C-alpha cells in the first residue's frame, strides 16, 4: 500500500480540510550498487579530509558556503534555526486561478491528496473546484522546506503539484542558441507543410505507449542473470538510435535533392554532374552504405598513394608550353565539351561576385 508522505489540513477562509499526501509518480530508474569485483562486497564511502586524507568524524563536520573560490563562510545549524519555516501542517490556499494560466514548466512534483478522517469537506471542495474549473494556489511546508502548490480537482479527487519559484525558472533569453530563431524566415508554404505534417501525426495522448525501454531491458537482463540463465545474445538495440551513420543520414536527403532537380529539365545537368560514385548496392541499409563510404575512401587513398609514387618516378621538371599529342587528351576534351555550356553560364552570372580570399 502507498504510504502518505505528509499529512495536514487544507485551509481556506474558515474551512479546514484534513488531508494526506501521496506521491503521484514513482520514479523507476534502475539503481545499481557498487561492489568490489573480487568478493562482491559493497563499496562504502568514507568522509576524509581533502588535505590530509584522514577520516573525519561526524562531530568535526560543519557546513560551509563557498562565497568565492576557496573561501568559505561556516554556518552553524543554530544560526539557521530562526529561518526554518515552521512546520504548520497546513496548506493555505490563497487564491484560485485558471489551469491554463500556469505555464507547465512550473509544475514540479505531483501528489495525490486523500481525505483524512472526514471525507465530506474534501468531496465538497473537490466538486466546487471541478465545476468552476479553478486551481487553488497555496503554500505549505514539508521537511523544513517551503513549497508553492497548485491543487486541481478531477473526477472528485484532488491532485496537488508543487511549483517552481519564478526565480528558479530559466529565462529563454538566457539561452544563446534560441537567439538564432529571430533570424529564421519561413514562407507561408513552408508553414503550411509543417502544419500538415503536424496534423498527420496528431493523436490523442496515450502515455501507455511510451516505455522506458532501457530500464525494461536491463531488468530483463538482471532477471535472467538472477535466474541463472546464460546471456549470450546482446539485448536488441532500440529501434531509433540517436546516433546514426553519416551516409545513411545523408542518403535520403541527397537522393531527394537530386530527384527534385531531375524533375526540372533546366536543372538536369546539375544532377548529372553531382552524381557520386555508387557501387550499385542501392544503399538500403545503413550498415552497407557505411561500408561503401569507407571502402571508397580507402580506395581513393590507395590510389592517391599510387599516383604519388608514380609521380616520383617521373622525370622532375616538365617542359612547359610543349604541346602534348592530341591522342592523349581525348578524354579531357570530351569532358570539356560536355561542360562548356555550364561554364559559360557560370562565367556570365556573378562574374565579379566572388572575390578571392581575404
Amino acid at each position, binding site marked *: 500500500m502507498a504510504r502518505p508522505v505528509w499529512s495536514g489540513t487544507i485551509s481556506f477562509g474558515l474551512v479546514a480540510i484534513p488531508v494526506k499526501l501521496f506521491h503521484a509518480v514513482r520514479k523507476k530508474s534502475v539503481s545499481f550498487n557498487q561492489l568490489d569485483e573480487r568478493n562482491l562486497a559493497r563499496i562504502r564511502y568514507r568522509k576524509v579530509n581533502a588535505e590530509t586524507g584522514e577520516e573525519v568524524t561526524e562531530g568535526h563536520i560543519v557546513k560551509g558556503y563557498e562565497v568565492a573560490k576557496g573561501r568559505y563562510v561556516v554556518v552553524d545549524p543554530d544560526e539557521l534555526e530562526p529561518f526554518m519555516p515552521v512546520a504548520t501542517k497546513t496548506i493555505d490556499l490563497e487564491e484560485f486561478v485558471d489551469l491554463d494560466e500556469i505555464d507547465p514548466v512550473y509544475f514540479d512534483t505531483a501528489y495525490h491528496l486523500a481525505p483524512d478522517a472526514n471525507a465530506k469537506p474534501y468531496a465538497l471542495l473537490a466538486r466546487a473546484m471541478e465545476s468552476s474549473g479553478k486551481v487553488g494556489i497555496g503554500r505549505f511546508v514539508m521537511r523544513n522546506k517551503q513549497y508553492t502548490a497548485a491543487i486541481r480537482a478531477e473526477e472528485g479527487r484532488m491532485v496537488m503539484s508543487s511549483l517552481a519559484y519564478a526565480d528558479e525558472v530559466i529565462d529563454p533569453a538566457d539561452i544563446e542558441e534560441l537567439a538564432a530563431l529571430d533570424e529564421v524566415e519561413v514562407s507561408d508554404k513552408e508553414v503550411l507543410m509543417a502544419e500538415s505534417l503536424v496534423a498527420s501525426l496528431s493523436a490523442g495522448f496515450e502515455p501507455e505507449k511510451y516505455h522506458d525501454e532501457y530500464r525494461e531491458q536491463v531488468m530483463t537482463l538482471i532477471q535472467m542473470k538472477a535466474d541463472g540463465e546464460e546471456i549470450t545474445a546482446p539485448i536488441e538495440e532500440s529501434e531509433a538510435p540517436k546516433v546514426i551513420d553519416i551516409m545513411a543520414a545523408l542518403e535520403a536527403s541527397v537522393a531527394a*535533392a537530386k530527384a527534385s532537380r531531375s524533375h526540372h529539365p533546366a536543372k538536369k545537368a546539375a544532377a548529372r554532374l553531382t552524381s557520386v560514385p555508387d557501387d550499385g548496392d542501392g544503399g538500403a541499409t545503413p550498415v552497407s552504405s557505411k561500408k561503401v563510404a569507407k571502402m571508397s575512401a*580507402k580506395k581513393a587513398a590507395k590510389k592517391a598513394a599510387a599516383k604519388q609514387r608514380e609521380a616520383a618516378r617521373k622525370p622532375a621538371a616538365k617542359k612547359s608550353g610543349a604541346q602534348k599529342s592530341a591522342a592523349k587528351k581525348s578524354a579531357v576534351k570530351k569532358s570539356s565539351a560536355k561542360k*562548356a555550356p555550364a561554364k559559360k553560364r557560370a562565367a556570365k552570372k556573378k562574374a565579379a561576385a566572388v572575390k578571392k580570399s581575404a
Partner: protein
Amino acid sequence: MSAPTIVEIDGREVRLTNLDKVLYPSGFTKAEVIDYHVRVAPVAVQHLAGRCITFRRFPNGTDQDSFFEKRCNAHRPEWVPVALGPGDRRGGIEYCRVEDTATMAWAANLAALELHAPMALAADLDTPRILVFDYDPGPKTSIVECCQVAIATQAVLDAVGLRGWCKTSGSKGLQMYVPLNAAHGGPTHQGAADFALAVGQVLERQLDGKVTTVMAKVERPGKIFVDWGQNALHKTTIAPYSLRARDRPTVSTPVTWDEVDDCAGGRAPLVFEAGDVLQRIEQHGDLFADVLVVEQELPSPRT
C-alpha cells in the same frame, strides 16, 4: 524546421541540421555539401591539417550574404582543434584546424562552403611551406589566359629548377603552388612574395600587355593579374578541394599539366563540380599530393 540529425563519424558525434536547405541556386543542398565534404575528406584534410583555416560561411546560400570566420566558432564541439594564427592588433586569433572527416562534416553543416588556408603551418607561422602564384583574370580574359600565363611561369621557374602544380580557383582563375617544404630554414613570407613579384615582372616583360603585377583594377582589363601578394603572412588562398560559392558547386580542383595545356589551347575550360572532383580522385588520386612533400629552395637573391 526539421530536428537535428546526430551522426557518428569516426567516433565523434556531429549534429546536422537543415539537410534539405538549398545552398546553391543550382539546387545543390546542404546534405549534398556535407556528402561532398565527407567523401572528399580523405584527400582534402591533408592539405588543411596543421593550418589555421578561415571559414567563409553562406548560411542562407551562395546568393545571399556571407561572412569570413577566422576565429573558430565558440560553439564548436570540443573535439575540433584550434591553433593560434595571425590576428588583429589585439593579438592572435584561435582558428579552427580541419584535420578529420568529422570536422569536415561539421564545417559543412555551418555552411562553411569555402575553406581558406594560409601557406604556412600553424606550428611555424613565419615560414611558408608553399609559394603561390594566383592568376586572376581581368575583364575580357578567362582561365584560358590564366593557363597560358601559368605555362609561361613554369618556363621561368624551369630556369631556376623549380616545379609548380596547378589547381583551378574553382571560381574564374587558376593558382600555381610551388612547394617549398624546407626541412629547416626556408624563406620568409616576404622572401616568397619578393620572388613571386620578380617572376611576375619577368612575365610582364615576356608577355607584353597580357600580365600585370599591379593590384589596381584599372590596370587589369585584358590582362591576367599575377597576385604575388597572396604570399603574405596574413593572406589565405582557397584550399585545394574546397567548394566555391558560385551558382553551381564548383571546386578548387588540382589539375594536370596536360589539362593546363589543353586549357591554354582553349580545349578545356577546367570547370569541375563536386561530383566531378570525387570521380577525378577515384581516377587520379590526389594530384596535389606532391605539394605537401616535395622540398624546393628559392634561388638566393643576387647581391
